[in-house]
Protein backbone atom coordinates (compact mmCIF):
# COMPACT_ATOMS: atom_id res chain seq x y z
CA UNK A 1 0.00 0.00 0.00
CA UNK A 2 2.47 2.64 1.17
CA UNK A 3 4.69 1.56 -1.69
CA UNK A 4 2.06 2.72 -4.14
CA UNK A 5 1.73 6.06 -2.37
CA UNK A 6 5.47 6.64 -2.28
CA UNK A 7 5.77 5.69 -5.92
CA UNK A 8 2.91 7.95 -6.87
CA UNK A 9 4.51 10.86 -5.03
CA UNK A 10 7.84 10.12 -6.66
CA UNK A 11 6.19 10.30 -10.07
CA UNK A 12 4.78 13.67 -9.11
CA UNK A 13 8.13 15.29 -8.34
CA UNK A 14 9.50 15.30 -11.89
CA UNK A 15 6.08 16.44 -13.05
CA UNK A 16 6.27 19.44 -10.76
CA UNK A 17 9.80 20.28 -11.82
CA UNK A 18 8.93 19.94 -15.51
CA UNK A 19 5.85 22.07 -15.05
CA UNK A 20 7.86 24.83 -13.39
CA UNK A 21 10.53 24.69 -16.08
CA UNK A 22 7.89 24.85 -18.81
CA UNK A 23 6.28 27.86 -17.19
CA UNK A 24 9.64 29.49 -16.63
CA UNK A 25 10.43 29.19 -20.32
CA UNK A 26 6.99 30.36 -21.36
CA UNK A 27 7.54 33.38 -19.13
CA UNK A 28 10.85 33.98 -20.87
CA UNK A 29 9.10 33.89 -24.23
CA UNK A 30 6.58 36.46 -23.17
CA UNK A 31 7.48 39.83 -24.65
CA UNK A 32 9.20 42.18 -22.18
CA UNK A 33 10.62 41.33 -18.80
CA UNK A 34 10.38 42.57 -15.27
CA UNK A 35 12.28 45.67 -16.25
CA UNK A 36 10.18 46.90 -19.13
CA UNK A 37 7.48 47.84 -16.69
CA UNK A 38 9.78 49.53 -14.19
CA UNK A 39 12.25 51.46 -16.19
CA UNK A 40 11.82 55.02 -17.13
CA UNK A 41 11.59 55.00 -20.94
CA UNK A 42 13.97 57.94 -21.15
CA UNK A 43 16.88 55.80 -19.92
CA UNK A 44 19.35 54.97 -22.62
CA UNK A 45 20.17 51.52 -23.84
CA UNK A 46 23.45 51.13 -21.97
CA UNK A 47 21.97 51.96 -18.59
CA UNK A 48 19.26 49.40 -19.20
CA UNK A 49 21.85 46.82 -20.16
CA UNK A 50 23.79 47.59 -16.98
CA UNK A 51 20.67 47.20 -14.93
CA UNK A 52 19.84 43.93 -16.70
CA UNK A 53 23.31 42.68 -15.90
CA UNK A 54 22.94 43.66 -12.26
CA UNK A 55 19.60 41.89 -11.98
CA UNK A 56 21.12 38.80 -13.51
CA UNK A 57 19.13 38.66 -16.72
CA UNK A 58 22.23 37.68 -18.64
CA UNK A 59 23.05 34.69 -16.45
CA UNK A 60 22.63 31.20 -17.81
CA UNK A 61 19.03 29.96 -17.69
CA UNK A 62 19.48 27.48 -14.90
CA UNK A 63 20.82 30.16 -12.54
CA UNK A 64 17.89 32.39 -13.40
CA UNK A 65 15.55 29.44 -12.99
CA UNK A 66 17.12 28.61 -9.65
CA UNK A 67 16.61 32.14 -8.36
CA UNK A 68 13.06 32.23 -9.65
CA UNK A 69 12.03 28.87 -8.27
CA UNK A 70 13.54 29.52 -4.84
CA UNK A 71 11.50 32.71 -4.74
CA UNK A 72 8.38 30.84 -5.78
CA UNK A 73 8.87 28.21 -3.12
CA UNK A 74 8.94 31.00 -0.55
CA UNK A 75 5.77 32.47 -2.02
CA UNK A 76 7.49 35.26 -3.88
CA UNK A 77 6.15 35.59 -7.41
CA UNK A 78 7.63 39.00 -8.05
CA UNK A 79 5.87 42.24 -8.72
CA UNK A 80 2.89 42.86 -10.96
CA UNK A 81 3.94 45.25 -13.76
CA UNK A 82 0.49 46.74 -13.99
CA UNK A 83 -0.63 47.00 -10.42
CA UNK A 84 2.82 47.68 -9.00
CA UNK A 85 2.17 45.43 -6.04
CA UNK A 86 3.45 42.05 -4.96
CA UNK A 87 1.78 39.30 -7.01
CA UNK A 88 1.13 37.39 -3.81
CA UNK A 89 -0.91 40.26 -2.50
CA UNK A 90 -2.95 40.34 -5.68
CA UNK A 91 -3.51 36.62 -5.57
CA UNK A 92 -4.66 36.13 -2.02
CA UNK A 93 -8.15 37.61 -2.33
CA UNK A 94 -8.75 36.10 -5.78
CA UNK A 95 -7.65 32.73 -4.55
CA UNK A 96 -10.07 32.80 -1.65
CA UNK A 97 -12.90 33.68 -4.02
CA UNK A 98 -12.05 30.85 -6.42
CA UNK A 99 -11.60 28.41 -3.59
CA UNK A 100 -15.03 29.13 -2.15
CA UNK A 101 -16.65 28.97 -5.56
CA UNK A 102 -14.98 25.64 -6.28
CA UNK A 103 -15.97 24.22 -2.93
CA UNK A 104 -19.57 25.26 -3.37
CA UNK A 105 -19.61 23.76 -6.87
CA UNK A 106 -18.14 20.57 -5.51
CA UNK A 107 -20.79 20.32 -2.81
CA UNK A 108 -23.58 20.95 -5.32
CA UNK A 109 -22.01 18.48 -7.74
CA UNK A 110 -22.26 15.72 -5.15
CA UNK A 111 -25.67 16.86 -3.97
CA UNK A 112 -26.92 16.37 -7.51
CA UNK A 113 -24.84 13.35 -8.43
CA UNK A 114 -25.62 11.05 -5.54
CA UNK A 115 -29.43 11.08 -5.60
CA UNK A 116 -29.61 11.10 -9.38
CA UNK A 117 -27.06 8.33 -9.75
CA UNK A 118 -28.72 6.24 -7.06
CA UNK A 119 -32.23 6.65 -8.48
CA UNK A 120 -30.97 5.99 -11.97
CA UNK A 121 -29.10 2.87 -10.94
CA UNK A 122 -31.74 1.47 -8.63
CA UNK A 123 -34.65 1.95 -10.99
CA UNK A 124 -32.76 1.44 -14.20
CA UNK A 125 -34.72 1.51 -17.43
CA UNK A 126 -37.75 3.05 -15.79
CA UNK A 127 -38.92 6.54 -16.68
CA UNK A 128 -36.92 8.33 -13.96
CA UNK A 129 -33.77 6.61 -15.14
CA UNK A 130 -34.47 7.45 -18.74
CA UNK A 131 -34.91 11.14 -17.88
CA UNK A 132 -31.69 11.18 -15.88
CA UNK A 133 -29.80 9.34 -18.60
CA UNK A 134 -31.13 11.85 -21.12
CA UNK A 135 -29.86 14.68 -18.95
CA UNK A 136 -26.39 13.18 -18.60
CA UNK A 137 -26.29 12.51 -22.31
CA UNK A 138 -27.04 16.12 -23.16
CA UNK A 139 -24.85 17.35 -20.31
CA UNK A 140 -21.88 15.47 -21.72
CA UNK A 141 -22.27 17.15 -25.08
CA UNK A 142 -22.80 20.66 -23.70
CA UNK A 143 -19.76 22.88 -23.30
CA UNK A 144 -19.73 24.51 -19.88
CA UNK A 145 -19.36 28.03 -21.19
CA UNK A 146 -22.42 27.83 -23.39
CA UNK A 147 -24.49 26.45 -20.57
CA UNK A 148 -23.20 29.17 -18.24
CA UNK A 149 -24.07 31.84 -20.81
CA UNK A 150 -27.60 30.52 -21.09
CA UNK A 151 -27.90 30.38 -17.31
CA UNK A 152 -26.73 33.95 -16.76
CA UNK A 153 -28.89 35.16 -19.59
CA UNK A 154 -32.02 33.50 -18.30
CA UNK A 155 -31.68 33.58 -14.48
CA UNK A 156 -29.42 36.59 -14.23
CA UNK A 157 -30.75 39.03 -16.78
CA UNK A 158 -34.18 37.79 -17.83
CA UNK A 159 -35.55 36.66 -14.47
CA UNK A 160 -33.15 38.81 -12.45
CA UNK A 161 -32.97 36.24 -9.65
CA UNK A 162 -29.21 36.40 -9.30
CA UNK A 163 -26.55 39.09 -9.59
CA UNK A 164 -24.62 38.99 -12.85
CA UNK A 165 -21.25 40.21 -11.65
CA UNK A 166 -18.90 40.61 -8.71
CA UNK A 167 -18.47 38.45 -5.63
CA UNK A 168 -20.37 40.53 -3.08
CA UNK A 169 -22.72 43.53 -3.01
CA UNK A 170 -20.67 46.70 -2.54
CA UNK A 171 -21.09 48.58 0.72
CA UNK A 172 -21.52 45.62 3.05
CA UNK A 173 -19.16 45.16 5.98
CA UNK A 174 -17.13 41.96 5.94
CA UNK A 175 -18.07 39.62 8.75
CA UNK A 176 -21.72 40.51 8.94
CA UNK A 177 -24.46 38.04 8.11
CA UNK A 178 -25.75 40.03 5.16
CA UNK A 179 -22.19 40.13 3.76
CA UNK A 180 -21.99 36.37 3.99
CA UNK A 181 -25.43 35.91 2.41
CA UNK A 182 -24.49 38.26 -0.40
CA UNK A 183 -21.37 36.22 -1.06
CA UNK A 184 -23.40 33.04 -1.27
CA UNK A 185 -25.94 34.75 -3.49
CA UNK A 186 -23.20 35.80 -5.89
CA UNK A 187 -21.64 32.37 -5.97
CA UNK A 188 -24.78 30.34 -6.30
CA UNK A 189 -25.55 30.69 -10.00
CA UNK A 190 -21.98 30.13 -11.22
CA UNK A 191 -21.63 27.19 -8.84
CA UNK A 192 -24.89 25.61 -9.98
CA UNK A 193 -23.94 26.09 -13.62
CA UNK A 194 -20.60 24.38 -13.09
CA UNK A 195 -22.08 21.64 -10.98
CA UNK A 196 -24.84 20.76 -13.43
CA UNK A 197 -22.25 20.09 -16.12
CA UNK A 198 -19.54 18.62 -13.90
CA UNK A 199 -21.90 16.17 -12.26
CA UNK A 200 -22.88 14.14 -15.32
CA UNK A 201 -19.76 11.99 -15.27
CA UNK A 202 -20.30 11.09 -11.64
CA UNK A 203 -23.99 10.34 -12.20
CA UNK A 204 -23.14 7.99 -15.03
CA UNK A 205 -20.41 6.30 -13.03
CA UNK A 206 -22.66 5.80 -10.03
CA UNK A 207 -25.46 4.45 -12.18
CA UNK A 208 -23.37 1.85 -13.94
CA UNK A 209 -21.62 0.92 -10.70
CA UNK A 210 -24.94 0.28 -8.96
CA UNK A 211 -26.33 -1.68 -11.89
CA UNK A 212 -23.18 -3.79 -11.90
CA UNK A 213 -23.24 -4.37 -8.16
CA UNK A 214 -26.92 -5.31 -8.22
CA UNK A 215 -26.16 -8.47 -10.12
CA UNK A 216 -23.19 -9.54 -8.02
CA UNK A 217 -23.43 -12.73 -6.04
CA UNK A 218 -23.04 -11.14 -2.63
CA UNK A 219 -26.11 -9.00 -3.26
CA UNK A 220 -28.09 -12.03 -4.32
CA UNK A 221 -26.92 -13.71 -1.14
CA UNK A 222 -28.06 -10.76 0.97
CA UNK A 223 -31.48 -10.93 -0.68
CA UNK A 224 -31.60 -14.65 -0.26
CA UNK A 225 -30.93 -14.23 3.46
CA UNK A 226 -34.07 -12.12 3.58
CA UNK A 227 -32.62 -8.64 3.90
CA UNK A 228 -35.15 -6.00 3.00
CA UNK A 229 -34.74 -4.14 -0.27
CA UNK A 230 -33.78 -0.88 1.40
CA UNK A 231 -31.29 -2.66 3.62
CA UNK A 232 -29.72 -4.31 0.60
CA UNK A 233 -29.32 -0.91 -1.02
CA UNK A 234 -28.19 1.04 2.01
CA UNK A 235 -25.87 -1.48 3.55
CA UNK A 236 -24.45 -3.25 0.57
CA UNK A 237 -24.78 -1.49 -2.72
CA UNK A 238 -24.28 2.20 -1.90
CA UNK A 239 -21.31 1.59 0.27
CA UNK A 240 -19.58 -0.14 -2.58
CA UNK A 241 -20.51 2.42 -5.17
CA UNK A 242 -20.04 5.59 -3.14
CA UNK A 243 -16.47 5.08 -2.03
CA UNK A 244 -14.88 5.58 -5.45
CA UNK A 245 -17.11 8.61 -5.96
CA UNK A 246 -15.61 10.20 -2.88
CA UNK A 247 -12.21 9.67 -4.36
CA UNK A 248 -13.07 11.49 -7.55
CA UNK A 249 -13.01 14.86 -5.93
CA UNK A 250 -9.37 15.42 -6.83
CA UNK A 251 -10.14 14.93 -10.50
CA UNK A 252 -13.28 17.06 -10.11
CA UNK A 253 -11.11 19.77 -8.65
CA UNK A 254 -8.89 19.74 -11.72
CA UNK A 255 -11.93 19.98 -13.97
CA UNK A 256 -13.37 22.85 -11.95
CA UNK A 257 -10.13 24.77 -12.33
CA UNK A 258 -10.42 24.69 -16.11
CA UNK A 259 -14.07 25.59 -15.82
CA UNK A 260 -13.44 28.52 -13.50
CA UNK A 261 -11.80 30.46 -16.33
CA UNK A 262 -15.06 30.37 -18.30
CA UNK A 263 -17.42 30.75 -15.42
CA UNK A 264 -15.57 33.63 -13.80
CA UNK A 265 -15.43 35.44 -17.13
CA UNK A 266 -19.12 34.94 -17.82
CA UNK A 267 -20.24 35.88 -14.31
CA UNK A 268 -17.61 38.62 -13.91
CA UNK A 269 -16.60 36.88 -10.71
CA UNK A 270 -13.30 38.20 -9.34
CA UNK A 271 -11.35 34.95 -9.00
CA UNK A 272 -8.13 33.42 -10.24
CA UNK A 273 -9.51 32.53 -13.66
CA UNK A 274 -10.58 36.06 -14.33
CA UNK A 275 -7.29 37.40 -12.99
CA UNK A 276 -5.44 35.08 -15.34
CA UNK A 277 -7.35 36.26 -18.40
CA UNK A 278 -7.09 39.91 -17.45
CA UNK A 279 -3.36 39.59 -16.88
CA UNK A 280 -2.86 37.86 -20.22
CA UNK A 281 -4.76 40.67 -21.93
CA UNK A 282 -2.82 43.31 -19.98
CA UNK A 283 0.45 41.46 -20.63
CA UNK A 284 1.05 41.37 -16.89
CA UNK A 285 3.23 38.31 -17.14
CA UNK A 286 4.43 37.82 -13.61
CA UNK A 287 0.79 37.40 -12.62
CA UNK A 288 0.18 35.06 -15.54
CA UNK A 289 3.13 32.93 -14.51
CA UNK A 290 1.93 32.77 -10.93
CA UNK A 291 -1.66 31.82 -11.81
CA UNK A 292 -0.61 29.12 -14.28
CA UNK A 293 1.77 27.69 -11.74
CA UNK A 294 -0.86 27.61 -9.01
CA UNK A 295 -3.47 26.05 -11.27
CA UNK A 296 -0.93 23.53 -12.52
CA UNK A 297 0.01 22.67 -8.98
CA UNK A 298 -3.65 22.27 -8.05
CA UNK A 299 -4.22 19.94 -11.02
CA UNK A 300 -1.23 17.78 -10.12
CA UNK A 301 -2.18 17.65 -6.45
CA UNK A 302 -5.80 16.93 -7.32
CA UNK A 303 -4.90 13.91 -9.40
CA UNK A 304 -2.42 12.80 -6.73
CA UNK A 305 -5.05 12.87 -4.00
CA UNK A 306 -7.59 11.07 -6.14
CA UNK A 307 -5.11 8.40 -7.17
CA UNK A 308 -4.12 7.76 -3.58
CA UNK A 309 -7.65 7.73 -2.21
CA UNK A 310 -8.80 5.52 -5.06
CA UNK A 311 -5.98 3.10 -4.38
CA UNK A 312 -7.04 2.93 -0.75
CA UNK A 313 -10.63 2.30 -1.72
CA UNK A 314 -10.09 0.11 -4.74
CA UNK A 315 -7.07 -2.20 -4.60
CA UNK A 316 -7.33 -2.95 -8.33
CA UNK A 317 -5.86 0.47 -9.13
CA UNK A 318 -2.65 -0.32 -7.30
CA UNK A 319 -1.67 -3.09 -9.66
CA UNK A 320 -1.09 -0.55 -12.38
Amino acid at each position, binding site marked *: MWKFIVRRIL*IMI*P*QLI*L*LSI*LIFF*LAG*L*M*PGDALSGQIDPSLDFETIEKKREELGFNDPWYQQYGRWISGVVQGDFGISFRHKVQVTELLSERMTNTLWLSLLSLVITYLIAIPLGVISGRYNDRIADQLITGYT*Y*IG*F*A*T*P*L*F*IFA*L*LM*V*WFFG*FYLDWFP*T*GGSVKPGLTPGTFSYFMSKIHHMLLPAISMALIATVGTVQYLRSEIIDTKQKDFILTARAKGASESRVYNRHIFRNALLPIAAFFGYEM*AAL*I*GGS*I*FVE*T*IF*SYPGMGQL*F*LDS*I*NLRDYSV*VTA*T*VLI*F*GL*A*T*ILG*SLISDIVLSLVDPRIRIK
Partner: protein
Amino acid sequence: METNQSSVEIEVKEIEKSPSGLRVVWRELKKDKLAMASLLLLILIAAFVYGVSWTLNQDEIVKVDLFAINEPPSSEYWLGTDYGGRDVFGQLIIGTKNSLTIGILVTLMSGFIGIVVGIISGYFGGTVDNIMMRIVDFFMVLPFLMIVIVFVAIVPKYTVTNFSLIMTLFLWMGITRLIRSRALQEGELDYIQASKTLGSSHIKIMFTQLLPNLSSLIIVTMTLNLAANIGIESGLSFLGFGFPESTPSLGTLLSYARNPQVLEHRWWIWLPAALLILILMLAVRNVGEAMKRATDARQRRG
Protein backbone atom coordinates in the same frame (compact mmCIF):
# COMPACT_ATOMS: atom_id res chain seq x y z
CA MET B 1 -6.39 -26.09 -66.40
CA GLU B 2 -7.94 -26.46 -63.04
CA THR B 3 -6.43 -23.25 -61.74
CA ASN B 4 -7.72 -21.40 -64.72
CA GLN B 5 -11.24 -22.41 -64.08
CA SER B 6 -11.16 -21.47 -60.43
CA SER B 7 -9.58 -18.09 -61.09
CA VAL B 8 -12.74 -17.06 -62.92
CA GLU B 9 -14.68 -17.89 -59.82
CA ILE B 10 -12.17 -15.98 -57.74
CA GLU B 11 -12.60 -12.77 -59.66
CA VAL B 12 -16.23 -12.85 -58.59
CA LYS B 13 -15.35 -13.55 -54.99
CA GLU B 14 -12.97 -10.65 -54.97
CA ILE B 15 -15.90 -8.26 -54.86
CA GLU B 16 -17.00 -9.77 -51.57
CA LYS B 17 -16.93 -7.06 -48.98
CA SER B 18 -14.09 -6.76 -46.54
CA PRO B 19 -14.93 -6.35 -42.85
CA SER B 20 -12.98 -3.12 -42.60
CA GLY B 21 -13.50 -1.00 -39.50
CA LEU B 22 -15.58 1.54 -41.33
CA ARG B 23 -17.81 -1.09 -42.84
CA VAL B 24 -18.44 -2.89 -39.57
CA VAL B 25 -19.27 0.40 -37.86
CA TRP B 26 -21.51 1.47 -40.72
CA ARG B 27 -23.43 -1.80 -40.71
CA GLU B 28 -24.29 -1.30 -37.04
CA LEU B 29 -24.93 2.41 -37.35
CA LYS B 30 -27.63 1.87 -39.95
CA LYS B 31 -29.78 0.21 -37.31
CA ASP B 32 -29.72 3.22 -34.98
CA LYS B 33 -32.41 5.70 -35.99
CA LEU B 34 -31.28 8.59 -33.79
CA ALA B 35 -27.71 8.25 -34.96
CA MET B 36 -28.77 8.09 -38.58
CA ALA B 37 -30.91 11.20 -38.16
CA SER B 38 -27.95 12.95 -36.53
CA LEU B 39 -25.67 11.89 -39.32
CA LEU B 40 -28.13 13.15 -41.92
CA LEU B 41 -28.44 16.46 -40.09
CA LEU B 42 -24.67 16.81 -39.94
CA ILE B 43 -24.32 16.09 -43.63
CA LEU B 44 -27.02 18.65 -44.42
CA ILE B 45 -25.42 21.31 -42.22
CA ALA B 46 -21.97 20.63 -43.63
CA ALA B 47 -23.21 20.61 -47.22
CA PHE B 48 -25.09 23.82 -46.59
CA VAL B 49 -22.29 25.78 -44.94
CA TYR B 50 -19.58 24.57 -47.29
CA GLY B 51 -21.84 25.07 -50.30
CA VAL B 52 -23.15 28.51 -49.36
CA SER B 53 -19.85 29.87 -48.10
CA TRP B 54 -18.52 29.06 -51.56
CA THR B 55 -20.83 31.77 -52.91
CA LEU B 56 -20.43 34.16 -49.99
CA ASN B 57 -17.69 36.70 -49.96
CA GLN B 58 -16.02 36.53 -46.55
CA ASP B 59 -14.46 39.99 -46.89
CA GLU B 60 -17.88 41.40 -47.65
CA ILE B 61 -19.34 39.88 -44.52
CA VAL B 62 -16.63 40.92 -42.11
CA LYS B 63 -16.49 44.46 -43.54
CA VAL B 64 -17.60 47.12 -41.10
CA ASP B 65 -20.79 48.93 -42.09
CA LEU B 66 -21.41 51.84 -39.76
CA PHE B 67 -24.88 52.52 -41.13
CA ALA B 68 -26.22 49.18 -40.02
CA ILE B 69 -24.84 48.54 -36.53
CA ASN B 70 -26.62 46.39 -33.98
CA GLU B 71 -29.71 45.89 -36.06
CA PRO B 72 -32.23 43.31 -34.91
CA PRO B 73 -33.25 40.54 -37.29
CA SER B 74 -35.01 41.80 -40.38
CA SER B 75 -35.70 40.63 -43.90
CA GLU B 76 -32.43 42.13 -45.01
CA TYR B 77 -30.35 40.80 -42.13
CA TRP B 78 -31.97 37.53 -41.11
CA LEU B 79 -30.18 37.46 -37.81
CA GLY B 80 -29.46 41.15 -37.48
CA THR B 81 -26.03 42.75 -37.35
CA ASP B 82 -23.28 43.14 -34.78
CA TYR B 83 -21.63 46.31 -33.46
CA GLY B 84 -19.70 46.67 -36.68
CA GLY B 85 -22.78 46.36 -38.84
CA ARG B 86 -21.71 42.92 -40.02
CA ASP B 87 -24.36 40.44 -41.04
CA VAL B 88 -24.68 37.82 -38.29
CA PHE B 89 -26.29 35.21 -40.51
CA GLY B 90 -23.43 35.34 -42.98
CA GLN B 91 -20.94 35.13 -40.10
CA LEU B 92 -22.86 32.16 -38.75
CA ILE B 93 -22.47 30.26 -42.02
CA ILE B 94 -18.80 31.06 -42.45
CA GLY B 95 -18.26 30.53 -38.74
CA THR B 96 -19.79 27.07 -38.83
CA LYS B 97 -17.62 26.20 -41.78
CA ASN B 98 -14.48 27.45 -40.03
CA SER B 99 -15.36 25.70 -36.76
CA LEU B 100 -16.03 22.42 -38.54
CA THR B 101 -12.87 22.70 -40.59
CA ILE B 102 -10.59 23.34 -37.65
CA GLY B 103 -12.39 20.71 -35.59
CA ILE B 104 -11.76 18.12 -38.27
CA LEU B 105 -8.20 19.30 -38.81
CA VAL B 106 -7.27 19.12 -35.13
CA THR B 107 -8.99 15.75 -34.79
CA LEU B 108 -7.04 14.33 -37.70
CA MET B 109 -3.71 15.74 -36.56
CA SER B 110 -4.06 14.69 -32.93
CA GLY B 111 -5.44 11.36 -34.11
CA PHE B 112 -2.40 10.83 -36.30
CA ILE B 113 0.00 11.50 -33.41
CA GLY B 114 -2.12 9.31 -31.15
CA ILE B 115 -2.09 6.42 -33.59
CA VAL B 116 1.66 6.55 -34.20
CA VAL B 117 2.72 7.05 -30.58
CA GLY B 118 0.07 4.69 -29.21
CA ILE B 119 0.94 1.83 -31.53
CA ILE B 120 4.68 2.19 -31.03
CA SER B 121 4.22 2.34 -27.27
CA GLY B 122 1.85 -0.60 -27.10
CA TYR B 123 3.69 -2.77 -29.59
CA PHE B 124 7.14 -2.47 -28.10
CA GLY B 125 6.04 -2.18 -24.48
CA GLY B 126 8.81 -2.17 -21.86
CA THR B 127 11.09 0.82 -21.64
CA VAL B 128 9.78 2.54 -24.77
CA ASP B 129 6.26 2.31 -23.41
CA ASN B 130 7.35 3.49 -19.98
CA ILE B 131 9.04 6.61 -21.28
CA MET B 132 6.22 7.50 -23.61
CA MET B 133 3.57 7.02 -20.97
CA ARG B 134 5.45 9.25 -18.53
CA ILE B 135 5.42 11.95 -21.22
CA VAL B 136 1.70 11.42 -21.74
CA ASP B 137 1.13 11.60 -17.98
CA PHE B 138 2.94 14.90 -17.85
CA PHE B 139 0.86 16.41 -20.63
CA MET B 140 -2.26 15.10 -18.94
CA VAL B 141 -1.64 16.98 -15.70
CA LEU B 142 -0.99 20.30 -17.39
CA PRO B 143 -3.75 22.86 -16.93
CA PHE B 144 -4.76 22.48 -20.56
CA LEU B 145 -6.83 25.61 -21.08
CA MET B 146 -4.34 27.99 -19.45
CA ILE B 147 -1.30 26.60 -21.21
CA VAL B 148 -3.05 26.85 -24.57
CA ILE B 149 -4.07 30.42 -23.84
CA VAL B 150 -0.51 31.34 -22.86
CA PHE B 151 0.80 29.73 -26.03
CA VAL B 152 -1.73 31.59 -28.15
CA ALA B 153 -0.78 34.82 -26.42
CA ILE B 154 2.96 34.50 -26.97
CA VAL B 155 3.09 32.99 -30.43
CA PRO B 156 4.38 35.60 -32.82
CA LYS B 157 2.46 35.93 -36.11
CA TYR B 158 -0.63 34.20 -34.86
CA THR B 159 -2.52 32.37 -37.60
CA VAL B 160 -5.24 29.78 -37.90
CA THR B 161 -2.60 27.15 -38.70
CA ASN B 162 -0.70 28.04 -35.55
CA PHE B 163 -3.91 27.82 -33.58
CA SER B 164 -4.66 24.32 -34.80
CA LEU B 165 -1.07 23.24 -34.13
CA ILE B 166 -1.23 24.54 -30.58
CA MET B 167 -4.52 22.73 -29.96
CA THR B 168 -3.06 19.54 -31.40
CA LEU B 169 0.03 19.81 -29.22
CA PHE B 170 -2.13 19.48 -26.10
CA LEU B 171 -4.84 17.16 -27.37
CA TRP B 172 -3.05 14.02 -28.56
CA MET B 173 -2.79 12.22 -25.22
CA GLY B 174 -6.29 10.82 -24.77
CA ILE B 175 -6.39 8.90 -28.02
CA THR B 176 -2.76 7.85 -27.52
CA ARG B 177 -3.67 6.15 -24.26
CA LEU B 178 -6.64 4.34 -25.75
CA ILE B 179 -4.72 3.09 -28.75
CA ARG B 180 -1.74 2.13 -26.65
CA SER B 181 -3.77 -0.06 -24.30
CA ARG B 182 -5.53 -1.81 -27.18
CA ALA B 183 -2.24 -2.25 -29.04
CA LEU B 184 -0.78 -3.77 -25.89
CA GLN B 185 -3.55 -6.38 -25.76
CA GLU B 186 -3.50 -7.01 -29.47
CA GLY B 187 0.29 -7.31 -29.58
CA GLU B 188 0.12 -10.32 -27.27
CA LEU B 189 -1.90 -12.26 -29.82
CA ASP B 190 -0.21 -14.92 -31.85
CA TYR B 191 -0.82 -13.36 -35.23
CA ILE B 192 1.60 -10.59 -34.28
CA GLN B 193 4.11 -13.18 -33.04
CA ALA B 194 3.58 -15.08 -36.27
CA SER B 195 4.38 -12.01 -38.34
CA LYS B 196 7.67 -11.73 -36.47
CA THR B 197 8.59 -15.29 -37.27
CA LEU B 198 7.66 -14.73 -40.91
CA GLY B 199 10.30 -12.03 -41.18
CA SER B 200 8.14 -8.91 -41.29
CA SER B 201 9.77 -5.75 -39.97
CA HIS B 202 8.45 -3.99 -36.86
CA ILE B 203 7.15 -1.07 -38.91
CA LYS B 204 5.35 -3.41 -41.24
CA ILE B 205 3.81 -5.38 -38.37
CA MET B 206 2.69 -2.26 -36.55
CA PHE B 207 1.11 -0.52 -39.48
CA THR B 208 -0.08 -3.32 -41.73
CA GLN B 209 -0.95 -6.06 -39.22
CA LEU B 210 -1.82 -4.27 -35.98
CA LEU B 211 -3.34 -1.04 -37.26
CA PRO B 212 -6.21 -2.60 -39.24
CA ASN B 213 -7.34 -4.35 -36.07
CA LEU B 214 -7.61 -1.04 -34.25
CA SER B 215 -9.61 0.70 -36.95
CA SER B 216 -13.01 0.55 -35.21
CA LEU B 217 -11.53 2.02 -32.05
CA ILE B 218 -9.85 4.75 -34.05
CA ILE B 219 -13.01 5.69 -35.93
CA VAL B 220 -15.11 5.82 -32.78
CA THR B 221 -12.55 7.78 -30.78
CA MET B 222 -11.92 10.29 -33.52
CA THR B 223 -15.65 10.91 -33.94
CA LEU B 224 -16.08 11.58 -30.22
CA ASN B 225 -12.96 13.74 -30.29
CA LEU B 226 -14.40 15.79 -33.13
CA ALA B 227 -17.34 16.77 -30.93
CA ALA B 228 -15.01 17.69 -28.09
CA ASN B 229 -12.68 19.66 -30.36
CA ILE B 230 -15.51 21.76 -31.79
CA GLY B 231 -16.40 22.63 -28.20
CA ILE B 232 -12.80 23.43 -27.27
CA GLU B 233 -12.30 25.65 -30.30
CA SER B 234 -15.45 27.62 -29.64
CA GLY B 235 -14.53 27.93 -25.97
CA LEU B 236 -11.11 29.33 -26.77
CA SER B 237 -12.52 31.67 -29.41
CA PHE B 238 -15.14 32.75 -26.92
CA LEU B 239 -12.39 33.80 -24.52
CA GLY B 240 -10.63 35.62 -27.36
CA PHE B 241 -7.81 33.10 -27.78
CA GLY B 242 -9.03 31.17 -30.78
CA PHE B 243 -9.92 32.52 -34.16
CA PRO B 244 -9.30 36.22 -34.63
CA GLU B 245 -12.42 38.31 -35.21
CA SER B 246 -11.57 38.72 -38.88
CA THR B 247 -12.07 34.98 -39.30
CA PRO B 248 -15.48 34.31 -37.81
CA SER B 249 -16.17 31.04 -36.09
CA LEU B 250 -19.02 29.95 -33.88
CA GLY B 251 -16.83 30.87 -30.94
CA THR B 252 -16.09 34.42 -32.10
CA LEU B 253 -19.82 35.04 -32.48
CA LEU B 254 -20.28 33.81 -28.93
CA SER B 255 -17.50 36.04 -27.69
CA TYR B 256 -19.72 39.06 -28.36
CA ALA B 257 -21.73 37.82 -25.41
CA ARG B 258 -18.87 38.67 -23.09
CA ASN B 259 -20.27 42.17 -23.38
CA PRO B 260 -23.24 42.22 -20.95
CA GLN B 261 -25.09 44.63 -23.26
CA VAL B 262 -24.98 42.12 -26.09
CA LEU B 263 -25.72 39.23 -23.77
CA GLU B 264 -28.81 40.88 -22.31
CA HIS B 265 -30.29 42.79 -25.22
CA ARG B 266 -28.97 41.42 -28.49
CA TRP B 267 -29.55 37.70 -28.28
CA TRP B 268 -29.62 37.33 -32.06
CA ILE B 269 -25.88 37.76 -32.21
CA TRP B 270 -24.84 34.96 -29.89
CA LEU B 271 -27.80 32.67 -29.26
CA PRO B 272 -27.96 31.11 -32.75
CA ALA B 273 -24.25 30.28 -32.56
CA ALA B 274 -24.70 28.82 -29.08
CA LEU B 275 -27.56 26.61 -30.22
CA LEU B 276 -25.71 25.59 -33.36
CA ILE B 277 -22.71 24.46 -31.32
CA LEU B 278 -25.00 22.46 -29.07
CA ILE B 279 -26.69 20.84 -32.06
CA LEU B 280 -23.39 20.05 -33.76
CA MET B 281 -21.82 18.57 -30.66
CA LEU B 282 -24.88 16.57 -29.79
CA ALA B 283 -25.22 15.22 -33.31
CA VAL B 284 -21.57 14.24 -33.62
CA ARG B 285 -21.71 12.59 -30.21
CA ASN B 286 -24.87 10.72 -31.14
CA VAL B 287 -23.09 9.24 -34.11
CA GLY B 288 -19.97 8.51 -32.07
CA GLU B 289 -21.80 6.96 -29.15
CA ALA B 290 -23.89 4.79 -31.44
CA MET B 291 -20.73 3.52 -33.12
CA LYS B 292 -19.17 2.91 -29.73
CA ARG B 293 -22.16 0.90 -28.54
CA ALA B 294 -22.07 -1.07 -31.75
CA THR B 295 -18.41 -1.96 -31.43
CA ASP B 296 -18.51 -2.52 -27.67
CA ALA B 297 -21.54 -4.75 -27.80
CA ARG B 298 -19.74 -7.42 -29.69
CA GLN B 299 -16.00 -7.38 -29.67
CA ARG B 300 -16.36 -8.40 -33.24
CA ARG B 301 -13.61 -9.29 -35.56
CA GLY B 302 -13.62 -5.68 -36.67
